[in-house]
């Protein structure tokens, strides 16, 4: 999973560890390398170490062990204000006693920039986030979304090449959040800056990032582009964490190269792609996305294994139908079908047979 040693690495973590109390490691042996211009998201549940990583990169926390490099130079001993890294904080941290323009001008002032140059840059930054008319306002007079834009502009105004964002959209409502996701992505692409983005919202991670690092328990579980992450999770944590996922537990009974057969605890068998299993007899947890489950037999290959399922609940959700099934003792098995004209609406209580393509079903570690 670690891809160190890339020649164009801009940000590098090498064997980084962090402990606060000397007993537990919050970050365990982190290796990460980012090329210039990449939009990388650190995704994980709270307490997984992602924010700690960001703080170490920004310089507010020191690594207990290991090396953090920025553009080839180790920055372990460089104080935060000399790192030249822009940062957007969770609650924006706009200085409440300064106007918007003064907030933006602050990083330029401490860099001893001339007044006219400062004004020009502040105006450009405000225009960039479409807040040109708000320079004279105080942060408290702005809405959450506007404050967010200002925080972004402030992190960009001094032309940092690396910008860190710590759950910047967490405080916004859903609609605004989605809008800002595209906005941030657009600006980042336009400026060609490198972004490290921390979030616990997987949709945000998937829609914005070039690559996503999924954190759990202080370790990067998988580092991959969004589509790989969704379609080819490498372990059951990632499979569970990213998107909606159905799991069934069983034992591998046959291995046929890139396919295998798993016998579930109730005796029924299914086809899967072996990912984290290597030999027959191993316990595994298979993972299948709700939208890849098929109950129309004609679309399945004739030799495919099928499972008996009982329809428990049918939920109409507008664009899709969501049906809860009981499969092999698991009554939280979800399937999603598109609301197409010819789509069947499953009746609760009816018995059906479901199946899937072996490549859509991944046999992962049982833990």
């Amino acid at each position, binding site marked *: 999973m670690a891809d160190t040693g890339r020649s164009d690495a801009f940000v590098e973590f090498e064997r980084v560890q962090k402990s606060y109390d000397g007993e537990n490691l919050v970050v365990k042996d982190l290796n990460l390398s980012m090329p210039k211009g990449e939009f990388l998201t650190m995704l994980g549940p709270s307490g997984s170490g992602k924010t700690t990583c960001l703080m170490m990169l*920004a310089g507010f926390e020191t690594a207990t062990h290991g090396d953090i490099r920025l553009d080839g130079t180790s920055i372990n001993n460089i104080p935060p*204000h000399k790192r030249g*890294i822009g*940062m957007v*904080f*969770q609650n924006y*941290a706009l*200085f409440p006693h300064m106007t918007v323009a003064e907030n933006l001008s602050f*990083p330029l002032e401490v860099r001893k920039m001339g007044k006219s140059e400062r004004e020009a840059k502040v105006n450009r930054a405000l225009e960039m986030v479409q807040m040109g008319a708000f320079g004279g306002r105080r942060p408290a007079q702005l809405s959450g979304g506007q404050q967010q834009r200002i925080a972004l502009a402030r*992190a960009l105004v001094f032309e940092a090449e690396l910008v860190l964002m710590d759950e910047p959209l967490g405080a916004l409502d859903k609609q605004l959040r989605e809008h800002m996701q595209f906005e941030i992505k657009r600006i980042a692409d336009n400026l060609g800056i490198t972004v490290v983005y921390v979030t616990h919202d997987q949709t945000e991670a998937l829609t914005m990032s070039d690559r996503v690092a999924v954190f759990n328990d202080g370790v990067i579980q998988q580092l991959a582009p969004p589509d790989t992450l969704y379609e080819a999770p490498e372990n059951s944590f990632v499979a569970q964490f990213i998107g909606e996922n159905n799991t069934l537990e069983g034992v591998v009974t046959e291995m046929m190269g890139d396919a295998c057969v798993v016998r579930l605890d109730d005796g029924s068998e299914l086809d899967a792609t072996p990912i984290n299993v290597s030999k027959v007899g191993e316990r595994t947890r298979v993972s299948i996305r709700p939208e890849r489950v098929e109950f129309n037999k004609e679309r399945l290959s004739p030799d495919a294994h099928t499972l008996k399922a009982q329809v428990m609940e049918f939920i109409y959700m507008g664009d899709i139908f969501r049906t809860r099934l009981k499969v092999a003792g698991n009554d939280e098995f979800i399937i999603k079908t598109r609301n197409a004209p010819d789509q069947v609406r499953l009746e609760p209580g009816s018995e059906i047979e479901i199946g899937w393509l072996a490549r859509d079903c991944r046999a992962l570690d049982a833990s």
Partner: protein
Amino acid sequence: MSDATSSGPMLAADGTPLKTSLARSLRMRKLRALMLIAPLLLFVLITFIAPILQMLLRSVENQIVSDTLPETVVALEQWDATTGDIPGEFAFEAIYLDLAIAVEQKLHTRLGSRLNYEETGMASLFRKSGRRIGRFDTDVYTDQFTDLNAAWEDPETWYEIFGDERNVAELPLVGRSWQRWAALFEAEGETVGKRDLEDFLFAALHYETRQDRYITSENPLLLQAMRAQSETPFETSRLIPQFEDADEDWLDHAVWQTIKTYSPRYTSGYFLNAIDMEKSPEGAVAKPENLQIYIKLFWRTLFMSLVITGSCILLGYPVAWILANLPSRSANLLLILVLLPFWTSLLVRTSAWKVMLQDQGVINNVLVWIGLVAENDRLALINNQTGTIIAMTHILLPFMILPLYSVMKTISPSYLRAAKSLGATNWTAFWRVYFPQSVPGIGAGSILVFILAIGYYITPEIVGGTSGIFISNRIAYHISSSLNWGLAAALGAILLVLVLGLYWCYDKIVGIDNVKLGG
């Protein structure tokens, strides 16, 4: 909203204006809220606001002169104090009558001490004259009137004559004197009865029936007395020499001028006194240089309160900062240490400073032992301004730390981080970002400390010596030792106005919205 502007006031569903109907619906709730605070409100009104107002009123009240010397006050209206001559016999006649009654009431000494605030010697003057006034030879009038008609000896005669309002109007002086005298006994539940009539009553009777007076009374006794005196004037008893005999200060112009100056029922005298001025025939003038103390004391109080506030900021700010940035467990422990002084009596803390600061005290001993200070050159740390400033800074420090702490607690550490990530050094981040946000805490702490300091009393009293005392010590002195409550009230009123004025300035300059005691 646009409806309201285009078609007059908004109407509620029943057609009444919306404002009226809103006010009606809120009235009940307001009333209930008022009832909740009513006990406290009443308590504060009765035990705090009312006494303060009553005390403030004392700073202008001056009824004692016109109540005790009513005739003198009237008589002196005809006297021009600017000529430099003392008033004539008429004033002595008036003050004789007033004093005679005041002695009966035992009020003359109180009046003496009141006037003594304005002119030294008045207390003893009134005391001495009070003792002597009964021995004035005004009994010549008594004898002459009773010789003329024995009926004058009988109090019933007086009751009869001066029970008649027409006679009182005719002979106001004697009428009033009689009524005041008789009222003394009536107040105690007895009538004058067969009590001997005092000489001064006959003196008053003489003053209003002597030859230059013409009376139209129908009372035969009065007519007889008037006629008798117009035929052969009575033998008189000149009062000026007798007063001079009692105390020669009665011939002092200043005594009479003081009485005249302080005869109105309300006076600005206490206030003038409180700003080192005094009344004179030419109006208010500054007191002689060597008697000026209060203005200096006000300035000192202000200046030292500012110094104390300043040192509290300097010492308290770092402590509050540490408290606000520590994990809450250790912060709580330290906070208890900050509050610890409140567990001991103020007196004990101040006395402890006495032990620490005195010439042979702990601090001086240590300094001598280290060798920083020579044995015969010990620092004077107590009984002066230094002592007051040190002790009061220590005592008021918690009042600075607590509001600072509660404001700093609300400043998110992410501001400092943001500033640093934007390229600010630690100092710039603190000064440009953290400090401005902590200013409301400084403001609240400063107001608390300053207002507490400006009225502080015990600590300056104990460690302040003479050069380190505050205006409040002077107020306390006038309340409890010199008993000049009027001056104490005037000083207090000035202090109150001063504090309110400073508060107003603070509001104008910093803005009272900028004061926060917490979140």
